[in-house]
């Protein structure tokens, strides 16, 4: 980038920031996401990570008190601590599922959309097979077959998630590939992979940003749902969904066990959705006034 382009870029960034700041909902979203990111990164230093392994039955199912503001679960573990510790795992699942899915989506979608023809047909029919299943059923089936663990939960979600991204990326590449700048690049004899990833990708990726941000919330929800049905990690690895699922058993005696982890899922997912919603307003040029 030369000097003029750089200053233009910073003007764009500053303009986007001003749009974001004007929208209170997006600011709220950023605050929520920032809060959970903070918990995910520094959680182990704020609270004692050893609590996850504690089994202390005399203290089990204690209602919220000053000592345990959210109460204790059926193993006698402090729920505040567990919810804080779980942030790391849940955000890790969301980040890795989305980033792996988008990489697969970009590679598959770009090849399919850029080259077209028979390659396109073949790749898209395979993608259709994955899209044809109801997402939750497919994820449940895969997670059941692989057995319960964090890695398998992620794998199941990636298998469900990548096909949607591949579809959208293909659509982007199909609409971009006929544009003059691509023809110009072809005439200059620039190799295909360079056109695909250096020239088209920056233009094609914009709509994905909003979808990816909102999908972060979606992955957190789906992962929590799966581990709620019992397909998540073991009880000694803190995860919001599995914490809540233990709470479901004790719903009538100890409703706080399910209440607080569920609230954490709600706010984390809400944060990403608010940011995504605001990003769309910022990226949509028709809304700029």
């Amino acid at each position, binding site marked *: 980038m030369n000097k003029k382009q750089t200053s233009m870029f910073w003007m764009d960034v500053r303009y986007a920031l001003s749009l974001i700041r004007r929208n209170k909902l997006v600011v709220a979203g950023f605050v929520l996401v920032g809060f959970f990111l903070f918990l995910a990164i520094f959680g182990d230093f704020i609270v004692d990570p050893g609590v996850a392994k504690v089994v202390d039955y005399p203290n089990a199912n204690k209602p919220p008190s000053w000592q345990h503001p959210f109460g204790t679960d059926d193993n006698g573990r402090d729920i505040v601590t567990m919810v804080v510790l779980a942030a790391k795992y849940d955000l890790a699942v969301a980040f890795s599922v989305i980033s792996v899915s988008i990489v697969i989506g970009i590679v598959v979608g770009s090849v399919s959309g850029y080259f077209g023809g028979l390659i396109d047909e073949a790749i898209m029919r395979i993608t259709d097979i994955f899209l044809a299943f109801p997402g*939750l059923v497919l994820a449940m089936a895969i997670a059941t077959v692989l057995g319960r663990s964090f890695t398998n939960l992620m794998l199941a979600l990636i298998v469900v998630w990548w096909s949607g991204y591949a579809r959208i990326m293909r659509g982007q590449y199909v609409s971009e590939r006929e544009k003059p700048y691509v023809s110009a690049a072809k005439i200059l004899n620039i190799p295909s992979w360079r056109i695909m990833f250096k020239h088209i990708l920056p233009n094609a990726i914009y709509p994905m940003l909003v979808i990816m941000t909102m999908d972060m919330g979606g992955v957190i*929800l789906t992962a929590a749902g799966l581990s709620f*049905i019992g397909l998540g990690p073991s009880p000694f690895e803190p995860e919001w969904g599995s914490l809540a699922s233990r709470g479901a058993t004790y*719903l*009538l005696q100890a409703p706080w066990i399910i209440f607080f982890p569920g609230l954490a899922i*709600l706010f984390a*997912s809400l944060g990403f*959705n608010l940011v995504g*919603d605001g990003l769309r307003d910022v990226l949509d040029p028709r809304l700029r006034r």
Partner: protein
Amino acid sequence: MNPLGAYVTERTRPEAIPIIEKRLGLDKPFFVQYTIYLEDLVTLNWGWSRVAHMPVIEALWYRFPATAELAIAAFLITIALGVPLGILSALKNNKAIDHIIRIIALTGISIPVFWLALTLQYSLSYLPKVNGLPSLPSSGRFDPILAQSYPFTRYTGFVIFDCLIQGNLVMAADTFIHLILPSITLAFLSVGQITRVARSSMLEVMRQDYISTARAYGLSERVVIYKYALKNALIPVTTVSGLMFGGLLGGALITETIFAFPGMGQLTVFAISSNDSYTILAFTVLASFIYVIINLVVDLLYAKLDPRIRY
């Protein structure tokens, strides 16, 4: 993965394995197996459901009306709330009411289903019951004990409809009350989606030139909104709500399981946990089929709504 796995345990005698293999057709070549599968698929010979102890097709047929009743109830709530909220939000763009509606809608798509379902069960069913207040039922499709005093015959399987044509108002009311909590749970999630679509499409339409023209002619704001803007704004809403209804008809796995609602979703969750591949497969095929049919209906509706579209 060997499909025999679901039929063989450590207690199966070794000499029985080839017999099971032969009965399931697993001894034949792969392509022959596939043609047999396709033939069975179109002749509705979908195998035996081990969790329901009956042929899969009968099990699904028996449970579909329950799922459909729930889907219709949730869908009606969604449309009745989502569309007006979305339109209102768009018309009051960036005012306080818009922000409130947007937060409600985003909460709807961010809320964990199981958490909402259990919280509703606890606060509207268990707590009032313990405190001696009138409470909503938290599980099942109707009260089986009440059904013994007011018996009814299943004609269609849609219990409310069956009871009404037999004049059994007690059971109709009881079934209706049992629908309230699960349908609120389902509707809360879809209201979020519909509100967002209605809002953005209404905003889009209100920016169009013909709206400015109508205003320039001096038409009152009410006429502009209800006569010109609304009809066009509802086209994308129709698509999304159609697809949503298709999704709802496919069965709500988690909601049905938590409310012990005897629909297809609950059967599928049982089937997945006991590795009943026939039932899982049949459910997947049926849910996809329903989705495709609803999609087609929506596409045809399009042409009715928008005269520019011709097939």
